[in-house]
């Protein structure tokens, strides 16, 4: 696994590069000439109104949906023309947390986390078991929860277990589909913090679809805005506040957007005073 790693993918290429993406369902156009480059090490939030194709974009990037036009490159490799070898190399380097967790319901949490390791490594049972325990702990789950089945978990635990599985192969690229949706504000904040911590300490590049303004302010380096079938802006959240695009304005300067921004400012001021 380690020997063939270097020659497979270009280390210096941006983790995600989407060029001229065109997606459509029959005659309903979803993306047209969409461009998006995510640089190494950034936590990028992807926002957009309902129906702007955030999930379609995610599915296209992770290869579940074939685009109608344009190219998607992961670590410099065009995924549509990738050989099986390159695909395997890509799969080892990304992790995906689906919106509902998508844990395999017939396996326990620990077996879920161990599955990617069994699939992609030649490690022994003991090592895999230990590594799975480690990931479960990293994701902030209590040690006993490895033995539980997904149906026995709460919403927040499912997200954490899904994150543990996404982190199983120590990916460099992490996809999160609305990681804090359906969580209460305290769990959301804790989950945000966890993602930020992991991104910083593991040097992750994160592609995160979210509706949660607090998450955007708390953890993203940049925010990509999907509107008018393309990415209309990609900038740090503070700069987007000043944008004059109508959708961005109503998003950030609506009542909820202002409340989040002010809460962050107050927090920053408080920590500055200390």
């Amino acid at each position: 696994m380690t020997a063939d790693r270097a020659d497979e993918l270009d280390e210096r290429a941006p983790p995600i590069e989407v060029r001229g993406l065109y997606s459509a369902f029959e005659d309903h156009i979803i993306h047209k000439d969409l461009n998006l480059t995510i640089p190494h090490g950034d936590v990028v939030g992807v926002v957009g109104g309902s129906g702007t194709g955030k999930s379609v974009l995610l599915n296209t990037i992770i290869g579940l949906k074939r685009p109608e036009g344009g190219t998607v490159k992961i670590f410099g490799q065009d995924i549509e023309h990738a050989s099986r070898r390159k695909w395997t190399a890509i799969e080892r380097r990304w992790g995906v947390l689906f919106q509902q967790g998508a844990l395999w319901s017939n396996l326990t949490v620990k077996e879920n986390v161990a599955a990617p390791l069994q699939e992609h490594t030649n490690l022994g049972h003991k090592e895999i078991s230990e590594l799975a325990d480690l990931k479960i702990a990293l994701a902030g789950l209590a040690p006993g929860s490895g033995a539980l089945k997904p149906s026995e978990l709460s919403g927040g635990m499912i997200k954490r277990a899904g994150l543990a599985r996404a982190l199983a192969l120590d990916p460099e690229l992490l996809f999160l589909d609305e990681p804090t949706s359906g969580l209460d504000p305290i769990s959301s904040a804790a989950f945000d913090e966890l993602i930020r911590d992991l991104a910083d300490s593991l040097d992750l590049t994160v592609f995160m679809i979210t509706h949660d303004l607090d998450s955007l302010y708390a953890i993203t380096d940049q925010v990509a805005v999907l509107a008018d079938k393309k990415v209309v802006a990609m900038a740090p959240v503070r700069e987007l506040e000043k944008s004059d695009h109508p959708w961005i304005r109503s998003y950030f300067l609506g009542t909820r957007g202002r409340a989040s921004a002010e809460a962050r400012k107050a927090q920053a001021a408080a920590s500055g005073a200390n």
Partner: protein
Amino acid sequence: MDQPADFTLSQTAQGRAAVLSGDWTATRMEPANEKLVQALVGVREVSIDLTGIGRLDTAGAYEILKAADASARTVNYIARPEITRLLELVDRAVKAEGTPVVRRRSFHEFFERIGHGVINVGLEAFDTMVFMGHLLVAIARACANPRRVRWAACFSLFERAGLDALPIVVTTTFFIGAVVGLLGANMLRTFGAQVFVVQLIGVAVLREFNVIITAVLLAGRSGSSFAAEIGAMKMNQEIDAMRVLGVDPFDALVFPRFFALFLAFPLLVFAATIAGLAGGLVVAWSQLGLGPTFFFSQLLTTVGPTHFWVGMSKAPVLAIIIAGIGCHQGMEVGGDVESLGRKVTASVVHAIFATILIDAVFALIYMKLDI
């Protein structure tokens, strides 16, 4: 406190005034709402006094607005502020324009449905071919590299889909054998040919009933559970989660189910054969006094092993069909619960239909071959 809706009308200088009372709610306003509409027909200026009203909900507000707006040009509402707010809220919602719904004519729709149906048959045939091709690749991959096969899943499914079905398969074929025996005994006795009941039971059970009954039971029991399991996993994005990890769902889900049924089916058919013969034997012994020794010697000389092998030869084919249809329908499930229900139903119906069809084809082939 609870009073039905009512109103009183009075004539004023400007027009008509209605004083409403009681609860104007969805459950209590009948029939006052219709009377109010009639009372205000053709009136140009209306004053509606709502100060004496009990409770008002959105349905009541909607009826009052509808009655007032039907013909009156100026409407004057006298009401408490919270009632006025509710009226305004409902008024805004009523005035918000809905998207125009294109009404299709039934004639047009009829042809559209036929067209869709025809195209869907083609698409489904194509999808089935894609599925079968994919399954063949998965089987070839498993043969080429048996260490990659998920044996644990294979054998746990073998137990669940195969061995757990043993009691029901055995019980059902036992009774089928007995019924065939009884019918045969009664009919053959009338012309004194009751010894031929052994031959009748032997041929019916060995050749047809063992394999058909097993197939129908497994289609209802295992085929549907394959479709439901895989479909639910698809709805929950579990299959997407496999794909992004580079795990082919055909290797992880379809092949083990296929393997389990392929292995279990002939064994179940064998058990069904024994049970069916036992059922026939019980009847022959108790009704006609033909003991086991006679029964089996007669079975060997008049029926012979050919019929047994004819029945068994259908087993692997039917196993492939039932497992294939169940898994295929499961993979076809979309994102909604309705499609899950539809596909599970389809898996059972298609599998039973295919079973009967294939059995007929086998019967024709063996007839031509004179077996």
